[in-house]
């Protein structure tokens, strides 16, 4: 009978399997741990995290942005990875709410865990959650407001949304300043949601307050030597072409010479070819030439002689943006000047930001583009400021496309949780428990916001709940004074699309994790060069 006792290996060595309760436990624990990690960053009084890179201890990031924190930390737990993924997707899709989505999913799972311990079957929980989600979405939808027809009011809405988004970030102290800045920037786009047109430049030095919105386009490059430094109404040619040596692209071409004179001739021919190219470029009747690639001394000199300002090595993004804003075409061949669109603007000048010289293109025809110049004491502050501005820009762009707004400050969560609670009251069967748990998870968001601000969350949230049940649909948390206030008057407004995305993705992820009853882990790939 010995063989019956001998283990029969089914899976690969080092591969492991977790089943049933243990699997569920491990996913709950993982998801909740991640939630606890990021939940302190939630809300206007949320705290920041320092992330230190493993490979380079000197490289550190200080941030409040959920997606940044989550994508930077090393995680082994598969359920936690799902949460990281929803947070990242949220970032890609709407740009903000990255912490909320993770926290909501985690809180749902925390409630789910409690129910599983009470021997409620996961499938029952899932079907309850689904009913709850529908109700919550309907409630959220009915609480929306739309001011898009009224320009002044809509701008006010946007400002409020920007302030709400920025209030949890490092820009908190200057939020009015920055809110105005981002709203101006987004409104310049005229309904276009392509954020490419908004360029963010970081220059350390000065204080955050000195950041400003520049109506032109700023290119962080230098003007070539000996070129004019200031041009009014320039004619700009934007090119992507080699201005060092023009290689022969025909396959197998190579130069073999048999004497010094031939070599000299060859050099001359090369030079002539380049000068020819320069001449063709100048023949476009331009006085500013911007190239994606390097411009060598010879052409630079030629351009300077002919009064053409040359700007070299603008990268891909720079070139594309510049082409977009000046209305020029990106050119690589120069034989048909009549077909090429030449860009223009009012003024090109070299200006100083802090210590650095940059090139500023102002008075841009399309008027859509602008540059946000961020100033700040350290590079960490600048990085974080950029992330915050990016979040705000994304949210505003989303709001411009989907103009409905909802109230923040825990107000919309309360509206949803109230609706879900009412559903639970009329639902017979065990599903009701799951529905209740959904409402509870929704209430966790204001609870965490209050906790983070150092207020008595139980007191505040129960007051808030009571206010909503008494019919005050605009009650929200006033985190300045630590009491209940009118969220609309407080000006805490969020984008409907962001809120809805948070709700839906959090539910999707929580359901996905809830459905798992078995975790199979493959043996880690052997890496011979990596010693632990």
């Amino acid at each position: 009978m010995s063989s019956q006792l001998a283990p029969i290996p089914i899976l690969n060595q080092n591969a492991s399997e977790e089943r049933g309760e243990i699997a569920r436990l491990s996913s709950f624990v993982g998801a909740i741990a991640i939630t606890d990690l990021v939940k302190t960053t939630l809300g206007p009084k949320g705290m920041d995290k320092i992330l230190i890179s493993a490979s380079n201890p000197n490289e550190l990031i200080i941030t409040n942005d959920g997606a940044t924190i989550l994508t930077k930390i090393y995680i082994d737990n598969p359920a936690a990875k799902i949460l990281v993924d929803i947070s990242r997707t949220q970032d890609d899709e709407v740009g903000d709410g990255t912490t909320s989505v993770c926290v909501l999913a985690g809180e749902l799972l925390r409630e789910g865990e409690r129910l599983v311990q009470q021997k409620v079957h996961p499938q029952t929980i899932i079907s309850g959650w689904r009913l709850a989600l529908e109700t919550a979405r309907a409630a959220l939808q009915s609480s929306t407001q739309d001011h898009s027809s009224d320009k002044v009011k809509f701008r006010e809405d946007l400002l409020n949304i920007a302030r709400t988004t920025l209030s949890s970030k490092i820009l908190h102290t200057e939020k009015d300043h920055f809110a105005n800045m981002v709203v101006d920037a987004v409104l310049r786009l005229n309904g276009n949601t392509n954020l490419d047109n908004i360029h963010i430049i970081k220059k350390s030095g000065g204080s955050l307050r000195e950041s400003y919105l520049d109506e032109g386009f700023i290119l962080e490059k230098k003007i070539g030597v000996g070129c004019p430094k200031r041009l009014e109404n320039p004619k700009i040619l934007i090119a992507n072409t080699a201005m060092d040596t023009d290689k022969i692209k025909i396959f197998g071409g190579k130069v073999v010479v048999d004497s010094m004179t031939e070599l000299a001739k060859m050099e001359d021919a090369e030079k002539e070819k380049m000068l020819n190219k320069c001449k063709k470029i100048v023949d476009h009747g331009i006085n500013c030439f911007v190239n994606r690639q390097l411009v060598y001394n010879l052409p630079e000199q030629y351009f300077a002689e002919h009064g053409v300002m040359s700007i070299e090595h603008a990268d891909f993004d720079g070139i594309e943006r510049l082409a977009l804003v000046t209305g020029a075409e990106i050119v690589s061949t120069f034989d048909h000047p009549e077909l090429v669109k030449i860009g223009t603007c009012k003024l090109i000048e070299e200006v100083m930001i802090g210590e650095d010289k940059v090139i500023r293109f102002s008075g841009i025809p399309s008027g859509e583009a602008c540059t946000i110049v961020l100033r700040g004491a350290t590079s960490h502050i600048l990085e974080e400021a950029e992330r915050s501005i990016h979040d705000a820009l994304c949210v505003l762009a989303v709001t411009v496309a989907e103009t409905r707004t909802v109230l923040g400050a825990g107000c919309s969560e309360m509206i949803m949780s109230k609706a879900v609670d009412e559903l639970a009251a009329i639902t017979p069967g065990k599903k009701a428990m799951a529905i209740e748990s959904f409402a509870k998870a929704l209430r966790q968001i204001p609870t965490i916001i209050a906790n983070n601000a150092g207020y008595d969350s139980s007191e505040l949230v129960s007051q808030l709940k009571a206010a909503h049940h008494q019919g005050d649909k605009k009650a929200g948390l006033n985190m300045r004074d630590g009491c209940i206030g009118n969220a609309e008057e407080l000006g805490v407004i969020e984008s409907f699309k962001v809120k809805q995305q948070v709700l839906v993705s959090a539910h999707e992820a929580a359901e996905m994790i809830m459905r798992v009853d078995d975790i199979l882990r493959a043996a880690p790939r052997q890496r011979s060069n990596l010693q632990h």
Partner: protein
Amino acid sequence: MSLVFDEYGNPFIVIRDQQAKERLRGIEAHRSHILAAKTISNIMKSSLGPKGMDKMMVSQDGEVLVTNDGATILENMQVDNQIAKLMVQLSKSQDDEIGDGTTGVVVLAGSLLEQAEQLIEKGIHPCRIYEGYETACKIATEHLKTISDSIEFSKDNIEPLIKTAMTCLGSKIVNRFHRQMSEIAVKAVISVADLERKDVNLENIKLEGKEGGKLEDTQLVKGIIIDKGISHPQMPKIIKDAKICLLTCPFEPPKPKTKNSIEITKAEDFKVLGEIEQKYFTDMVEKVKATGANLVICQWGFDDEANHLLLQNNLPAVRWVGGLDLEKIAMATGGRIVARFEDVSADKLGRAGLVREVGFGTTQDRYLSIEDCPNTNAVTIFVRGGNKMIVEEAKRSIHDALCVTRNLIRDNRVIYGGGSSEISCGLKISAMADDIASIEQYAVRAFADALDAIPLALAENSGLPSIESLSTVKAMQIKEKNPRLGIDCNHRDTNDMKAQHVFDTLPGKTQQFLLANQVVKMILKIDDIIKMGPGADE
């Protein structure tokens, strides 16, 4: 017996036992096989049915995958045991052949082996067991045909197809929107199906996914979506009445396949070569332009200069399109793929009503959507979802639904699900078993018992008292002579699967029985395993 002695008493070695890590023989071998197979089927059991659970898989590189699809689970499980590998193969062949029922087939095989184990304990020879199984399997497949029902559908009446697809999607995460998903799947299949020949080429359906948005944003696009953008930022992003030139040659000077080198020895040559090069580019663009094309889709890259020339000539272009995608575009637009610039001509252009570039979210992901193609035979299902894992799982689920719909179009016979067909077959086999005079009677009966595993697992996963519900349904089936009674997984208070609209395809179910039976037979025939020790191959 690895050591034998010749007539002089000298020993000689037949099998070098010392190096073999282990050797199992006879009944021990059977036991170990059955145990391994059972382990696999036990893992899969909980994924069966509409209330089945998912599995979370962590790959070698730490990537997470959440799925309910039997074939996918097994494929990623990295099993080491040889018998377990057979089970993996089993599920895979069901996937390749039918595309659905991959979990059920493994559970069935596991259960057959479990029954076989008891018979082996009783002392029945494995050969007799699988002969009995063979008989029983034949009875079962015959019986399936008699209880099958055929459903009628046409291009305008796709409701029955949707119902079947819904059964298939019922167990997946997409079941929140399974009506919508089924409609998408069925419409996709119908639009590419050749109802005359009863054939469907699933290659014409492209599944493209992008995380973000919600599951219900998933949509069916009549046309093709490819994960590429227009090559130059300033080319038009929307092209109406596109005439598409499909190229598999790069917009670059030709590279002769034979190795060559051009030696430039004189300055004049250098100039001439420069001019030739320029001419290449202009010629290429002109040739394309001359055909009247207004969109170029190329499998390879372009040189910067070519890219600009295309822009200047108002020829939007797409580069680095994969070979498969290019073929699909060619099929949809009716164009011909051209491999040399000399061959481009107006009649080889593909046509599409609308080509546009679409972007999603805040990142710069651009997709090219080619719509209103003359050949409607190509569609794309564009899946959205809250995270990457959901999108992947939704894609797999939709693929299953597509397969099921295809099978129905090929063969419109269905049998009812919810374990009803297994119960009915089980009853039939038990009844027939009494007429068998030989030892196989036991094996045939065992087969009938093994079939119970499916309804049992269904009931268990749905949170019903498994044995009780099975015996109730069995009794009802005998009493009412109604083979459509099954386990009421969705708690709809009826056991009649016809009323619940739970269908499976007949070929799918038959295939499950046959495949499971074959693998079991194969496993039972093995009576000796010799496993080489790690040092053996040196």
